[in-house]
């Protein structure tokens, strides 16, 4: 999320705790301890320059999606905290609110989804949307629900050219072209040619809850 947007969000709130997450967000270097520290310093600096009051601290939770971990890690650190700013994915701030309903919670991240990464290039790819009805075993291990902008189950559409997708000016791979290539390599083009019925969207119906 752009820093200006974060600063505007926490304007006028005195004591802040920036909460990093060492789960996916930390692994992807979006919201780990380092990033939490940097954001805390940035906000502090902005406040000093503008003669604004308040203390900005930072901390890290191993996984912000885990209520128990959130409770045990953060409870001792909440003295004089007016608001927490989460650097986890969208699940993090919602878990913080569940555990600490009396403290304001904000997010500093525009969550894009679950991905994979290329560390050298610094690229992050959205690979899964957690749709609840996995097609990977039929599509050569490539997810059309996430990697095709139309989430087609009978792709590709007419917008594929030379293996690239019409969305994003033919810079991104067409998921169905990748599926075609993969299935061809596996000798399973029958799976490509196969007609798939429209999806049952009930399994993706938000909000979902998993009983363990």
């Amino acid at each position, binding site marked *: 999320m752009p820093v200006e947007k974060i600063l505007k969000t926490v304007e006028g709130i005195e004591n802040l705790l920036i909460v990093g997450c060492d789960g996916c967000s930390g692994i992807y270097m979006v919201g780990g301890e380092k990033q939490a520290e940097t954001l805390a310093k940035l906000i502090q600096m902005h406040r000093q320059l503008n003669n604004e009051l308040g203390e900005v601290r930072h901390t890290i939770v191993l996984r912000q999606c885990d209520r128990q971990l959130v409770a045990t890690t953060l409870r001792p650190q909440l003295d004089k905290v007016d608001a927490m700013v989460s650097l986890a994915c969208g699940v993090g701030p919602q878990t913080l609110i569940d555990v600490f309903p009396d403290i304001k919670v904000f997010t500093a991240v525009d969550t894009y989804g679950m991905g994979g990464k290329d560390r050298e290039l610094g690229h992050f790819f959205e690979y899964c949307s957690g749709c609840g009805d996995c097609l990977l075993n039929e599509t050569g291990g490539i997810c059309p629900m996430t990697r095709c902008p139309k989430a087609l189950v009978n792709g590709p559409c007419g917008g594929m050219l030379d293996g690239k997708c019409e969305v994003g000016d033919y810079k991104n791979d067409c998921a169905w072209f990748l599926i075609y290539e993969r299935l061809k390599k596996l000798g399973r083009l029958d799976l490509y040619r196969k007609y798939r019925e*429209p999806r049952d969207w009930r399994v993706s119906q938000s909000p979902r809850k998993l009983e363990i």
Partner: protein
Amino acid sequence: MTKREAYSKLMEEINAGKFVYTGELEPEKIGDMEEVIEGAKKLVGHVVAANVTDIPQSFAYMNSLGPSYMIQEKAGLEAVCQMTCRDRNRLAMFADLLAAGALGIVNILALTGDHPSLGDQPEAKPVFDLDSASLTALIRKITDKGVDLNGHEIHNPPKFHVGVAINPGAIPLEPEILKLERKESVGAEFAQTQVVFEIEKAKQFMKAIKHVKVPTLVGIFPLKSYKIGQWMNDFVPGVTIPSDLLHQLKELQKIEDKPLRKEKIAEMNVEYYGEFLRELRKTTNAAGCHIMAVKWEELIPRIIEASGR
């Protein structure tokens, strides 16, 4: 495949083995249908039916259903109502199909649709609950079994013919052909191709899909100006325009007298596509030709005549 009963003139002529012509009409960002109806009137007697586009390239235009009905009513021209899956979920598509049937629309072209990000409202939420294949399957279910997607009975079910689109310019071509086979397996009854400029490409393509028993109309696009030709050649994926044709167009563009220039460019198209069609009929099993001459309807009879039929 045994031929099904024909409910439309288009399908009747395809079944009879006639080389058929279809045209194209495009309702735009406009609050009346005069222009589309006038365009349709010019096509009557020259084409068997005309496609009516459904929010092409994701530009917020008038829908397809209304004008499809009106050209049948007011111009007496059969419609091929295009339906894309971009903007409606399966409930809305089914609802529109019932309305289309009740309004006497028989031919439906089942399209996935361009992504909203390509159009003039790129912020729009893409739907794509169905796709061109599952829409085809739905239309066949309605027609053959009189039921909806979940098998619920329709009272007085409509009868449709369903067509699909295919791109001879797809690179690579194999996945495109497999996709046509997939659409054949769910009951596609005819296909219209994206624009082809090169006769050789059209011939190669028709040969490559010979095993697929879906009557196919090859799509052509008469060129109004050098600018359009150059733009299509440079920016439309999979489209190449022969350099001779582009060069000829560039020369004609230099004519200063506007009506004369227009006529000379028309003559060029008539000659080029007349020959294209003669060759297509002679050397391929194409079921016909889909002529995309939007707002240039008067050119269509001239091209057909020049092709010797």
